[in-house]
């Protein structure tokens, strides 16, 4: 029965290789991101998380491998309205107000002012509409950047370290927002170099030095390593991966 079959993955990557300048950044990465869930992409700084995300949204020149996103090749024009991407550094216009930034991105997506107002509420920036984005704090700026990607309610959200530099309360609120989006059917791929956040995810991708170490879940990772703390569990996985088996 068709209804019993698992939904096809939102992202399927096979043998992805990326070279940036003189650096061989990704080495034969293969993975699947399930639809309608939050998948955490975790690994230390410099391991290739941003490069992998850039490849998924189709802005990275890739050396080899296949990336299928929502059933189409990564970077296909038909994916552009369906995939929201938030870069690691906030990519909004610092000299425009919050409302003007969202107004611009909103008009590119063809969404109206109601939707813009709702989205400003979603990222907790109500009352800041008139502020010049460049004068906001780093965390507020990254939420403006996040809001621009939420505007058109995409099927897939690729968020590069969206919670970095946020205070714990805000971080918590954002993860709750991500949970609500996933419940409503959005697929989220969220990167972080902080292992604490792994517990918020349904599915985990553990990366190190351009390689995927594990595709797992928080529960399975705890069980595999016998560590309750996910940060320690990740360390255990790294240690084991370094021992010749």
């Amino acid at each position, binding site marked *: 029965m068709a209804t019993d079959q698992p939904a096809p993955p939102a992202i399927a990557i096979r043998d992805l290789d990326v070279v940036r300048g003189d650096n061989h950044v990704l080495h034969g990465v293969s993975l699947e991101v399930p639809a309608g869930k939050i998948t955490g992409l975790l690994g230390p700084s410099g391991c290739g998380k941003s490069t992998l995300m850039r490849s998924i949204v189709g802005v990275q020149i890739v050396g080899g491998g296949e990336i299928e996103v929502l059933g189409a090749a990564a970077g296909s024009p038909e994916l552009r309205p369906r*995939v929201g991407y938030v870069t690691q*550094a906030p990519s909004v216009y610092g000299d425009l107000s919050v409302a003007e930034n969202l107004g611009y991105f909103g008009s*590119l997506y063809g969404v109206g002012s109601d939707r813009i107002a709702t989205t400003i509420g979603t990222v907790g920036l109500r009352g800041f509409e008139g502020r010049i984005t460049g004068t906001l704090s780093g965390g507020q700026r990254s939420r403006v950047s996040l809001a621009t990607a939420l505007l058109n309610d995409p099927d897939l959200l690729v968020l590069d370290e969206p919670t970095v530099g946020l205070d714990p309360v805000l971080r918590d609120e954002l993860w709750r927002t991500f949970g609500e989006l996933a419940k409503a059917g959005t697929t989220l791929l969220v990167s972080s170099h902080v292992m604490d956040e792994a517990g918020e995810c349904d599915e985990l991708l553990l990366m190190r030095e351009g390689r995927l170490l594990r595709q797992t879940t928080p529960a399975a990772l705890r069980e595999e390593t016998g560590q309750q703390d996910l940060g320690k569990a990740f360390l255990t996985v790294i240690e084991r991966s370094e021992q010749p088996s």
Partner: protein
Amino acid sequence: MSIRATGATARRVLLQIRRDPRTIALLLVVPAGLLVLLYFIFDGQEATFQKIGAPLCGLFPFIVMFLITSIAMLRERTSGTLERLMTMPLGKADVLFGYGIAFGLLAALQAIVVCSVGFVALGLDSPHGAWLVGLLAIGNAVLGMALGLLASAFARTEFQAVQFMPAFIFPQLLLCGLFVARDSMAPALDTISYALPLTYAYDALALVTEPGDLGGDFAVDVLVVAGATIASLGLGALTLRRRTE
């Protein structure tokens, strides 16, 4: 290309400029101010002021637009906003024409101000009509914009971008015939000047601000400037990459 996305981009660029009073001053006040300065430098030497000041009215927009566009596009490239736009439902042509329309409008304003000051207040002559100088000024501004867009691809910082002024714009200004007639330069320089677009921009302005027939030379000048604009816009479009390293 879509009218909505192009229009939204033009509006956004204008909003950014509006937020920056110094840039507005550079656009509208500085050229007219320099013309007044020139008027007093050539105190009582009406013929010299006419010979240099009149064509300069149509060259200022070229210089200013080159400067502003190279910096503005560099910011788009380095701030991540261009990468972001390239993942959105927006064509490269929307970006190019959005900038073109916004800066074209500003160039028109600039031309009106500088031509009013020059041809009305300071008594410069334009035997073929000041409006024609204004039109040429707008065309030159679009050329400056196209070259600035192209140049921005070869700079990594704003510091490098402003270096294009002394490196590429000043030589063209010196060789175009504005200060010294080209046929009295060293023959090699005269030959080189044929390869520089500003030479034709100046030549058209010189013809329009002197009595006598416009003739076929004027048409050639206008065509060369138009051709150089289209060529640099085309090359500039090639530097707007969806995928980068």
